């Protein structure tokens, strides 16, 4: 991430398809991260559809879905991307005088840079791409093109199945043992793993209540709330400022994660750190549910060195409250900046347990898993 280096930014702009415009009123602390004007990219991209012959339509479609926010969440984004790559590989044909592995790797790299332009990669997507590239590199030269493509197709299928779908089932099986009758469970935002856990526990007949904590500007908790109330779970909904009030009643906290880093830090939706901190203050166990393919060897101490910046306009406007319009025309004053962080880093001392498909581990065991079930063995 070196968006404060002008020469690199120039190079990136030349290569990119999307051609984003830089945001005005950039926050100084985050100069090293890309800050772009939202809203201008989607119509430009839509109009260019027939001109982009280098890009496979499935990848293009997924990129558009990321840009508009239709696909959200680590697992969903990863699966959508891998399925798009599967289609692209199926339609791929090696040009003459080129080897399949090198050419295909270059093509995948170009797709990836397009997706990065639409929205920066999540850690899950990054790990999946590394897996795919390593599988492509391992293809023996002797294999024919159709056999190679079939191998890759089945590799991707296996990855999705083992690392995401089956992993989720194992996590749910472990996690429901931690839910007892009479529990009040708190969750933040909308995590696919936590939602599955709650639904499964309810199907097993356990009696518990759910507290859903939500925050601006995405209000992801509302979607989770709707799905859980439909299934018949008893839910309480509140916003993040009120967690000190509601934490008195809570017995367990379940959180999702975008990634867990090697120093035990949980990298997740912004606000997770606040929830974990208050729960720790009230001596309530915090359980993080994360598939093992999302672990990463990188380390991070705070939420500023590496993050993603979202659309600042979604902060200045409050949907449904037209009376809150004090910040109309905020970009005209040079003294005002709006900061819309997407992720934050929760220190490992706040986390009691991480539930993965390798079992229930403390945060200190994450580098062990990254290394022992290292990249070579992890993908077998």
């Amino acid at each position: 991430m070196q968006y404060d280096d002008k020469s690199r930014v120039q190079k990136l702009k030349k290569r990119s398809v999307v051609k984003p415009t830089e945001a005005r009123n950039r926050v100084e602390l985050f100069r090293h991260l890309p800050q772009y004007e939202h809203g201008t990219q989607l119509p430009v991209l839509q109009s260019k559809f027939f001109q982009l012959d280098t890009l496979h339509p499935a990848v293009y479609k997924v990129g558009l879905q990321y840009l508009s926010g239709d696909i959200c969440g680590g697992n969903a984004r990863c699966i959508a991307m891998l399925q798009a790559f599967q289609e692209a590989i199926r339609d791929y044909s090696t040009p003459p005088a080129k080897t399949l592995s090198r050419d295909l790797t270059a093509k995948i790299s170009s797709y990836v840079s397009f997706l990065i332009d639409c929205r920066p990669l999540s850690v899950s997507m990054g790990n999946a791409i590394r897996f795919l590239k390593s599988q492509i590199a391992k293809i023996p030269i002797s294999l024919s093109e159709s056999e190679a493509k079939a191998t890759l197709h089945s590799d991707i299928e296996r990855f999705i199945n083992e690392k995401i779908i089956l992993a989720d089932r194992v996590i749910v099986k472990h996690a429901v043992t931690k839910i007892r009758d009479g529990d009040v469970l708190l969750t933040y935002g909308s995590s696919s793993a936590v939602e599955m856990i709650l639904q499964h526990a309810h199907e097993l007949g356990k009696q518990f209540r759910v507290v859903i904590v939500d925050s601006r500007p995405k209000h992801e908790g509302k979607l989770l709330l709707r799905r859980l109330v439909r299934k018949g779970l008893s839910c309480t909904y509140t916003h993040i400022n009120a967690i000190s009030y509601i934490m008195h009643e809570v017995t367990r906290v379940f959180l999702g994660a975008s990634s867990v880093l090697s120093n035990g830090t949980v990298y997740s939706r912004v606000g997770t750190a606040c929830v974990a901190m208050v729960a720790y203050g009230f001596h309530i166990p915090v359980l993080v549910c994360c598939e093992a393919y999302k672990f990463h060897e990188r380390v991070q101490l705070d939420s500023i060195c590496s993050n993603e910046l979202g659309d600042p306009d979604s902060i200045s406007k409050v949907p449904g409250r037209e009376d809150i319009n004090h910040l109309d025309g905020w970009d005209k004053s040079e003294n005002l900046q709006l900061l819309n962080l997407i992720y934050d880093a929760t220190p490992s001392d706040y986390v009691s347990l991480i539930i993965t498909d390798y079992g229930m581990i403390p945060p200190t065991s994450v580098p062990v898993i990254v290394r022992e079930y290292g990249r070579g063995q992890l993908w077998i």
Partner: protein
Amino acid sequence: MVAHGRQCKIEGSQATARQTAELLRSVISQQRVPYTNQAGALIDAVKAVGEQLIAANPVELAVGNIVRRVLHIIREEDLSLTTAAIGELNLSAVSDDENDDDRDGNTTLSAAAVAAAARSTLRPPSLQTLLEDTPVSAAVPQTSSSGAADKSSRSRKLKHDVIEAVNELIQDIVTCHEQIAEQAVEHIHQNEVILTLGSSRTVSEFLFAAKEKKRSFRVFVAEGAPRYQGHLLAKELVARGLQTTLITDSAVFAMISRVNMVIVGAHAVMANGGVIAPVGMNLVALAAQKHAVPFVVLAGSHKLCPLYPHNPEVLLNELRSPSELLDFGEFSDCMDFGSGSGSPLLHVVNPAFDYVPPKLVSLFITDAGGHNPSYMYRLIADYYSADDLVVQRRAIAGN
């Protein structure tokens, strides 16, 4: 004013405090006081009105604070008058031998009155008073020897003194922001980064004062959902030329590692040094403690409440309308009360206030200077009397 209080029409502790003080001043000036026991009559009148005001809006603690301050003023003024009278009595006793006729000109009190004044709880207890079993109201017994003219002049003097003191109180309430803002330069240095949540007039005046003195600093404002008053504060700060960044409340933990100081306002300060503040403040205080960032609370002295917070999250809190969080139309299809036990599956919780325990607060800055949270209980002795903690009219003796 009671009707207004019930509908919470008056916003802000300062405005409420001022209105309460003005109302009590008019009550006192209109009250007819008997010749004897003027202080008791005034106290009863103020307590009667005060009870109604407090009952109308129990969460607005500033009302109760001002009622108690006025009661304390009445007791103090009465005490100082009787002390002056006792002083004159001693003088007149000395000069008794010389001039018996001068007696009429002096305010005279019987020995019983002197003893009663000594028993007044405003004085530190002596061995005599500790063992006596007296009613707590400062009832000064009949002064049979005083002339009619003396009595009326004394009663007028008491009312006059009390009204003067209440005027001073109103003046203090009105100027509390300036006095707090004067201390701004002592606490803000160059190139500081300050975090605040929501909007407080005290905080904005504080920051403007520092800006006037040419300190350059940056401010992170957390928006303070669901009222979003942080947007207002950000707009004001930008208009004054301060570098401001608006963040969501969820990003407080992420940003606080880069902040030098947290400055916030309060709704009320309790006797143990705990703070009743807009919702979300406990989050900020915990994050500040974790990162060793000083947490400074600005509060005018009319916000200091002599009560101890028992279960403040429930008893001193207000739950606001859920429509601020969830649109009913959005979720009406999920709220099917016809199924199962018929009890609602969906609850929405929207508290208005948060309690911050005293161990998380580094410093209180009031119009009387800066204090530690452990010192706040001493200020209570300055401003309030122990008799007035429960503002209720006493039952008539003989029941």
